[in-house]
């Protein structure tokens, strides 16, 4: 079975997931505060999460071309299909941009003109943190990613038509494309992470943050790859993908979970040791007001995957693989939740505290002002609506992935590294 069939049952499943997500978003929209901050922050959270997954797929593919890697060749279409989600991701981010220009939401403190004028820190950063840069960088950078993703996809498809097992011309092109993309990807992803994620805590910054976030995206991408491959194998596709390939993917998952923890800890320890108030406030908020998520984050994304995947045979057992992949996928989604929501909540408190007309309305709805210790629905922890929205976005993501899977042969027949991949042995 080399031609993927997008069954109507799968379509129904994904569409119903999307409807569930949409319903959850609508319920959120009608039940949250006057700024619809829960609604908008859920959109931002999931858009950023899945756009990053698409980006990391093309990033890893490029790295593999450059490293003359061959073991992944059988299932490289999966990563190509992941990267085909990027245009949708851009669309979702444009939604956020429209929200910024139309003042539909207050996710970012720096979009509030009055606040920027009154605040020397925000004023000092306004050369970078302003709606224009946000718009240009988002469209420009994701546009560049889409360009490279499409280019790599096209070369790969052309190879399928015109190449041959010993024809390296297409592969050379892929290598050159990858070589150009990697440095661009490295710097551009950092810039986009500052804008999309780090700037919700507009006063705070960390030089490690971009790496840390990228590691989170990478692990989510690997977890989704493992889950999708296991699913496709159970449907009778990818019989050539063996335990050996899955073993290597799980080694990645194991190693990058440790890498993520390394970055998490480096960021934490430097800030803890230096003890500068402007920096420690980030962890102060998260440790005191989100203790379950804060420590749960470390347990889900480090302790459990580390202890479970450290054993060799565990990386080959389907049950264990599924458990760990689902765990870290959810874990890193929560990680993004923890990056975004506390900052957004703080901004909302600030904006409402500045005597806007909607304060009374919001206070009537939720009864918060400076009440930091009390919990806020959708912010203190992911609620059912957040989970529903996540499922909706998962449906959207996989709908896009499956739709691109149908457009090409599942195994790239003419890739010169295919034979190596078939005989991959750990």
């Amino acid at each position: 079975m080399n031609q993927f069939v997008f069954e109507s049952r799968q379509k129904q499943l994904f569409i119903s997931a999307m409807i569930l997500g949409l319903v959850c978003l609508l319920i959120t929209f009608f039940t949250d505060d006057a700024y619809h901050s829960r609604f908008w922050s859920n959109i931002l959270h999931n858009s950023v999460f899945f756009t990053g997954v698409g980006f990391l797929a093309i990033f890893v593919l490029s790295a593999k071309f450059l490293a003359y890697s061959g073991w992944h060749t059988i299932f490289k279409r999966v990563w190509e299909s992941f990267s085909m989600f990027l245009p949708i991701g851009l669309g979702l981010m444009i939604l956020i941009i429209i929200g910024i220009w139309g003042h539909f939401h207050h996710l970012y403190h720096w979009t509030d003109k009055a606040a920027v004028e009154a605040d020397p820190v925000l004023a000092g950063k306004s050369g970078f943190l302003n709606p224009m840069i946000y718009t240009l960088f988002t469209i420009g950078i994701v546009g560049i990613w889409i360009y490279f993703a499409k280019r790599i996809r096209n070369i790969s498809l052309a190879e399928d038509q015109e190449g041959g097992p010993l024809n390296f011309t297409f592969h050379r092109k892929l290598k050159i494309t990858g070589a150009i993309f990697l440095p661009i990807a490295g710097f551009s992803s950092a810039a986009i992470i500052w804008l999309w994620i780090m700037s919700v805590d507009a006063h705070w910054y960390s030089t490690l943050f971009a790496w840390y976030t990228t590691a989170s995206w990478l692990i989510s991408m690997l977890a989704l790859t493992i889950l999708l491959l296991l699913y496709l194998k159970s449907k009778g596709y990818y019989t050539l993908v063996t335990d050996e390939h899955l073993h290597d993917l799980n080694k990645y998952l194991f190693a990058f979970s440790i890498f993520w923890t390394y970055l998490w800890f480096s960021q934490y320890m430097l800030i803890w040791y230096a003890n500068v108030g402007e920096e420690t406030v980030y962890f102060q908020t998260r440790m005191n007001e989100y203790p379950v998520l804060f420590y749960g984050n470390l347990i889900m994304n480090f302790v459990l995957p580390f202890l479970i995947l450290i054993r060799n045979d565990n990386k080959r057992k389907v049950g264990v693989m599924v458990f760990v992949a689902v765990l870290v996928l959810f874990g890193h989604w929560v990680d993004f939740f923890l990056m975004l929501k506390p900052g957004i909540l703080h901004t909302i408190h600030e904006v409402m505290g500045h005597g806007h007309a909607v304060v009374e309305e919001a206070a009537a709805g939720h009864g918060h002002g400076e009440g930091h210790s009390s919990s806020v629905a959708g912010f203190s922890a992911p609620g059912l609506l957040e989970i529903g929205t996540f499922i909706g976005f998962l449906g959207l993501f996989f709908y896009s992935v499956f739709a691109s899977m149908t457009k090409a042969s599942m195994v790239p027949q003419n890739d010169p590294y295919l034979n190596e991949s078939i005989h991959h042995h750990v």
Partner: protein
Amino acid sequence: MSSSSAKEVLFGLYDDETQLLDAVKAANSQHLEIDNVYTPFPVHGLDPLLGLEESRLHIAGFFYGLTGTSLAFGFMTWVFTRDWPIIFGGKPYFSAPSFIPITFELTVLFACIGMVVTFYTICGMGPGVKAKTLDDRITDDKFCIAFATAGLSNDDLGKLTNFFTETGASETNTKTL
């Protein structure tokens, strides 16, 4: 594996690892009991053919690492909270985050040294120990299958010599280890 008693060995040398793999398969199908196989580099697919179990060295490694973790963390905790408490930069005596890097280093150190010592002990290697080699070329470009010949009849020995000629061994020799 090391053994102190002398061992009579009949061995054949092959030029190529595919020849070796085929020969091992042939030996398995003829129910010849291979004593050991020597190769200059790890040959993929050889372990399952020889019926070798997965090494348990890494399990030992995990516990060596765990020893390192607890020793390092425990020692620093004891020193900085009980034995000689010092305030560094206004931090509390028990400053767990600043213990982590050293804990990590000692975990790696203990796991490495523990595994090396275990491996050398199991293999009977060590400083000053002379290695018992069947043929120097098995560390270079030859692949070797060895049979223990102690207590074998001439008939059996003939079978083994036949086996080596059939499977294309370039040389056959005997040696006492």
